[in-house]
């Protein structure tokens, strides 16, 4: 659906996007994560035909964004990180306006407007002026707007930025609905865990370089790879300790009286196996809790690894 090959964008001497290549297949939800100034917006704007690359190729459904950009625009729904609305325009007129910019017929526009306002929960705001909406509502409206022509690919640049927690959850819900509708989505954020529930793929970008790109399960495995197990026993401390020591998957043990913290590198199945062992040995287990490693840790690690590999 979206193929980026050796994309480079320079602003004068400054390289904002440095040789990025990635591929997003139909139905993928690709999360683009990186700190401020990493080059997310720049990449997305190039894909949305709003900016020209210095070099490299971007294909949307096989079409070069530089060649038939009008056709590409018909396939893309773009939501910028910052945007404004017109004064003196009502919500349904706003949708209607953009609908006609995509060349939709009146009947199609009306139908889509109704459907989409329903989707983003703005149905009762249909007759309000767009400039009177709250920020979160404007963001949802802009998302609806980007969907008006039923695009195959959505490019969403931090759609939840500046929203309060409740609005974020609401936005997430809408995005999940879109995921259910089998849309292909490229979405950016600078918070990794915000995307983890939603995305099928994650790309981590830093200072213009794509330092990691892969399936969300990969990232999750890395997290599982650094699982901390919290185990408490009622008695039999020594027996438990001996058992932990002979487990190859247990890398580190911190013990304090009857409670332990294990650094565990196995899967969920391995974990169950460990618990079975404990029980079979007759050790009275009081608690057995898995503590999630944080995505932010993984993020730091991936970035560090990349820098080590590339001698930077």
């Amino acid at each position, binding site marked *: 659906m979206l193929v980026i090959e050796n994309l480079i964008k320079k602003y004068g001497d400054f390289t904002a996007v440095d040789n990025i290549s990635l591929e997003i297949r139909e139905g993928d939800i690709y999360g683009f994560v990186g700190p401020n100034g990493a080059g997310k917006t720049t990449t997305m704007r190039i894909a949305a035909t*709003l900016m020209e690359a210095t070099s490299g190729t971007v294909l949307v459904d096989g079409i070069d964004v530089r060649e038939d950009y009008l056709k590409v625009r018909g396939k893309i729904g773009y939501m910028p990180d910052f945007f404004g609305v017109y004064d003196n325009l009502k919500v349904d007129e706003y949708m209607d306006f953009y609908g006609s*910019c995509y060349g939709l017929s009146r009947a199609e526009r009306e139908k889509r407007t109704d459907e989409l306002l329903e989707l983003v929960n703005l149905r009762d705001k249909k007759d309000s002026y767009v400039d009177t909406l709250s920020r979160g509502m404007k963001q949802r409206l802009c998302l609806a707007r980007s969907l008006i022509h039923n695009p195959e690919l959505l490019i969403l640049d931090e759609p939840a930025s500046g929203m309060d927690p409740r609005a974020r959850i609401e936005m997430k819900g809408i995005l999940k609905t879109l995921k259910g509708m089998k849309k292909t989505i490229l979405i950016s954020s600078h918070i990794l865990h915000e995307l983890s529930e939603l995305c099928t793929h994650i790309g981590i970008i830093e200072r213009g370089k794509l330092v990691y790109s892969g399936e969300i399960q990969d990232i999750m495995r890395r997290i599982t790879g650094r699982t901390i197990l919290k185990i408490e026993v009622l008695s039999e401390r020594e027996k438990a300790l001996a058992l932990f020591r002979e487990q190859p998957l247990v890398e580190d043990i911190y013990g304090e009286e009857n409670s332990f913290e294990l650094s565990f590198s196995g899967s969920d199945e391995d974990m169950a196996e460990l618990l079975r062992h404990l029980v079979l040995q007759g050790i009275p287990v009081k608690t057995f809790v898995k503590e999630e490693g944080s995505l932010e840790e993984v993020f730091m690690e991936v970035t560090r690894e990349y820098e080590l590999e590339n001698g930077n």
Partner: protein
Amino acid sequence: MNLKMGIKRNPVITSEMKIKMRGWRTALAVAAYLAVLLFIGFLYYLTFIESSYSYRNTVNAFQEMGIQLYSMLAVLQFSLLILITPAQTAGSISGEREKQTLDLLLSTKISSFGIIFGKLISSMSYVLLLIITSIPLFSLIFLFGGVTPGDMIKLFLFYIITVFSVGSIGIFFSTVFKRTVTSTVITYIVIFFLGLISVILGIYMIQAQVRGTGHLTNPRIPFILYINPAVGLADILTAEQGGVSQFLGYNIGTQTGLDFWIINSIVMMTIAAGLLYAGVKKINPIHRKKKRKKQA
């Protein structure tokens, strides 16, 4: 280009019209504009009556007053239009940038041409409204005689061409500058200097020609004057006396039978088309189509 994005189907036009016609602002502005024209016209009428009441009952006197009143209103309306038009167009694209709506517009299937064309027509529509509503006022002058409907059609056609050209300058600068304030100021400065410099240069060149050839009759009208709509207006208003070529010299259109104002209009429209084309190129984010040829 995409002619399907015609006036009726251009969303920029439809939407801006909707916004502009909402509320009382436009209606009030039109009323105020007409009031100014009417008030000044009436003052002029009064002074004329005062100064010439000895022969005010003759048909000739009325005709003459009619013609004078007409010329005065024509110049007044021309000046007002030149003053109003840049303000309407100079913010059209920069305003979208300031509101952060330009990217949204550009990401849709509407072409850059459609956007520029839509902006031009919709900002022009307001000025056209002023022109159209002034028609009844101008028609009153028919009562005095001396002015024909043909004269008026010519004048109003020229207004529309002038407004279109001046408007294009505003559109062009609104694509160049990020801020509407800058764009507006630059547009006014450029229009003012184009008007002033073309006249100064034109007169200087006529004098130089006269000095050089020694002839006092019929020097060539310097080309720089063809960009100035004020000269075209003068040509239209002095048509009875033979137009501006009578005063300024030989008009390049004479052989083909074209009056100065027609050549003037063609030159202005050409410049305007060039500016609009530059504007279309300027807002289109994709400049060069990628060549698929591989280089060895």
